[in-house]
């Protein structure tokens, strides 16, 4: 019978933890190069030598002292779920800092396997790590790995399995010096009175955490009758001074250990630093960043176009075949005008979306994202945020939902709230079809630049809104900015393709569910009541559109656009999908000529519509995640109302200016 083994993967940010997780499970999951890419708990299973490993990827953390939301997640999992084995992934080129987390894991009494990752890099510069000595000194298993080439993964799996067969370890003790140790002993004595508690958590570990002023551990005592005693004891002295001292003692422990197990060679200025000299240059940094972004969108547009032609041809043929072969008029209309036209107008952009996600994956995996945060720090600070907030915002180019979740790496609550509120202004992949359709139709060769301009507008609105929120809502200073910069790596093709596929797959799934549903609803409303001309002003949808038309009439939008925008709240691709259905173009690229032929459309209106789509209330998914992450309806409604108001005003300005200029 297969035996289940619970495995948790822990480690510092940027050590290749997610790559190890991918290699262990073969799971399709994104990897990144900057702190906190793993915002959610990710699980995978692996069969190995008759055992079933249930592997959980924990967020990357420097320690387990619960400084940010990520660390709390990681620590609570280890404490509460008690995994059979914890695999800590370490950066072999920076053992000192990585072993800090190891020391904390050992104190918790975990069954620990160390994966010494990037061992090739350490060996290349001449480091020598004495594995058996490290194992015997710490009482752990250690395996050298090169995760991005799959090196050492088999050995790691073997080691995980054999670790469960050995005796559980005795929690490792680090000496904290006489004064602290006395207090630890006293606390251990008090804790010992509650056997229920000490059965769950090692007493010494709890004592250490209490001395460090750990709120989280303190709250675990709340149901125990010894809480009063502990509080009483802790209030007898000022434990602030011990906190940093205890951290220092851990480093002392590591400092004593390291020379015994490892000879390191000093590193010269690395190639990474040379790149950084250029990329983060005071004058070149921002132009380089903008050029990369511009290149990314040009590429998205240029490479996608031939595929769009093919997909358009296919749907054109399909639409024709349906019209020719289906007798029932209403069914032919549902399939042709409704589903095929609607779905096609969205599916047309799948190649672009895939290319965009691929480009984002390349930027992330190469390590450039963290540099972008650094370059933008000064600007972000002026706008009331810190550089780190820029990373979730950049992720927002892909999809707002994971981007909003990625704000969990921000330690300060106000920083986090503001970042969540402004991230939806970053133009996500779902808005791209709207731009490609409209810019491609009305701006021809300038389309790439128009789209780039929309992305820049999104960034500007986001940071100006941040300034506004910082001034009026979440007053105060942004928290000080510090972030580790991962070394540049050649982005792995496989990982980038996996990321692209995962994200693109979600997009396809959305087309298959939400968007088909949306366009069918639009079709029903456009077809009925019986007898009216399809999609005309007399149909249900025409009435609905005319009802809300006055709201957008000042922008020059007619009722068809109004309807498309209403349905676009479900998912922004539906703006295009409903236009496709409303114009009943039967698929293909024929939506473009239909729009060109419609007198109520003009380049100015198209620009206004793109600006409106960019900025107005984010899709249901994003709104729901704002509610979840802020834990408040208030902020959700605030965000929705604020963004719609901004969209309305800026779209109006755009249309007015464009009418003058174009």
């Amino acid at each position, binding site marked *: 019978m297969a035996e289940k083994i619970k495995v948790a993967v822990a480690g510092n940010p940027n050590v290749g933890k997610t790559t190890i997780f991918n290699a262990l499970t073969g799971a399709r999951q994104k990897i990144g190069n900057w702190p906190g890419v793993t915002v959610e708990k990710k699980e995978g299973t692996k069969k190995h030598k008759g055992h079933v490993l249930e592997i959980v990827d924990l967020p990357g953390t*420097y*320690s387990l*002292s619960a*400084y940010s939301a990520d660390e709390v997640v990681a620590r609570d999992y280890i404490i509460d779920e008690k995994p059979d084995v914890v695999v800590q992934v370490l950066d072999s*080129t*920076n053992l*000192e*800092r990585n072993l*800090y987390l190891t020391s904390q894991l050992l104190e918790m009494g975990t069954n620990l396997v160390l994966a010494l990752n990037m061992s090739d890099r350490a060996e290349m510069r001449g480091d020598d790590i004495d594995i058996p000595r490290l194992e015997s000194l710490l009482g752990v298993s250690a395996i050298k790995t090169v995760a991005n080439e799959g090196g050492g993964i088999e050995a790691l799996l073997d080691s995980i399995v054999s670790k469960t067969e050995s005796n559980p370890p005795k929690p490792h003790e680090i000496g904290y010096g006489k004064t602290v140790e006395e207090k630890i002993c006293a606390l251990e004595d008090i804790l010992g009175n509650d056997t229920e508690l000490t059965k769950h958590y090692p007493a010494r570990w709890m004592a250490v955490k209490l001395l460090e*002023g750990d709120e989280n551990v303190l709250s675990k005592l709340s149901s125990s009758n010894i809480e009063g005693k502990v509080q009483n004891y802790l209030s007898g002295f000022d434990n*602030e001074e011990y*906190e*940093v001292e205890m*951290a*220092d003692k851990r*480093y002392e422990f590591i400092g004593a250990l390291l020379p015994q197990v490892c000879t390191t060679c000093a*590193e010269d200025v690395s190639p*990474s*630093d040379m790149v*950084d*000299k250029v990329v*983060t*240059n*005071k004058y070149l*940094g921002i132009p380089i960043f903008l050029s990369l972004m511009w290149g990314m969108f040009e590429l998205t547009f240029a490479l996608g176009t031939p595929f769009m032609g093919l997909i358009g041809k296919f749907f054109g043929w399909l639409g024709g075949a349906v019209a020719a072969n289906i007798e029932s008029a209403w069914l032919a209309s549902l399939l042709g005008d409704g589903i095929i036209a609607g779905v096609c107008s969205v599916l047309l952009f799948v190649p672009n979306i895939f290319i965009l996600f691929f480009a984002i994956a390349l930027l992330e995996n190469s390590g450039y994202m*963290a*540099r972008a*945060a*650094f*370059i933008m*720090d*000064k*600007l972000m*600070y002026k706008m009331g945020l*810190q*550089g780190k907030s820029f990373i979730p915002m950049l992720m927002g180019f892909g999809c707002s939902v994971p981007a909003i979740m990625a704000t969990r790496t921000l*330690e300060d609550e106000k920083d986090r709230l503001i970042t969540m509120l402004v991230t939806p202004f970053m133009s996500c992949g779902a808005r791209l079809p709207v731009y490609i359709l409209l810019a491609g139709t009305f701006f021809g060769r300038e389309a790439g630049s128009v789209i780039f301009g929309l992305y820049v507008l999104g960034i500007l609105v986001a940071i100006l809104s941040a300034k506004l929120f910082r001034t009026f809502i979440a007053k105060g*200073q*942004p928290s*000080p*900015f*510090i*972030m*580790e*910069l*991962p*070394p540049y790596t050649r982005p792995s093709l496989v990982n980038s393709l996996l990321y692209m596929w995962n994200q693109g797959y979600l997009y396809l799934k959305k087309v298959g569910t939400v968007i088909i549903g949306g366009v069918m609803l639009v079709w029903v409303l456009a077809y009925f009541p019986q007898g009216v001309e399809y999609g005309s002003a007399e149909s249900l949808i025409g009435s609905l559109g005319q009802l809300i038309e006055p709201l957008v009439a000042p922008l020059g939008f007619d009722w068809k656009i109004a309807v498309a925008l209403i349905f676009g709240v479900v998912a922004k691709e539906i703006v295009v999908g409903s236009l496709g259905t409303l114009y009943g173009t039967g698929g293909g690229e024929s939506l473009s000529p239909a729009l060109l032929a419609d007198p109520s459309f003009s380049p100015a209106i198209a620009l206004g519509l793109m600006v409106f789509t960019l900025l107005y209330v984010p899709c249901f998914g994003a709104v729901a995640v704002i509610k979840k992450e802020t834990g408040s309806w208030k902020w959700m409604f605030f965000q929705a109302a604020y963004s719609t108001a901004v969209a309305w005003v800026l779209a109006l300005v755009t249309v007015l200016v464009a009418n003058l200029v174009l």
Partner: protein
Amino acid sequence: MTSKIPLSMFPSGQACQICDVCAGKGLKRRLVEMGLTPESIIQPLGCNRGSLLISVNGSRYALGRGMANKIMVQPVYEEVPQFG
């Protein structure tokens, strides 16, 4: 003679040593956990509109000016400076 000054005021391009961090306990410990341990040597790598790029113990960090204000440093000398 050594004098402690904030990292943000330190002449750029020269290595220095962390002596102290003027911050609350949470941030102080955070820096230690991230590898910016007391007495570490800071190698400056670059500066961009007040934000710093530094190398400490083999890792690269980006710091905002606010953070650089909190880190007190002193110069390091390869050799003991000779007087007279």
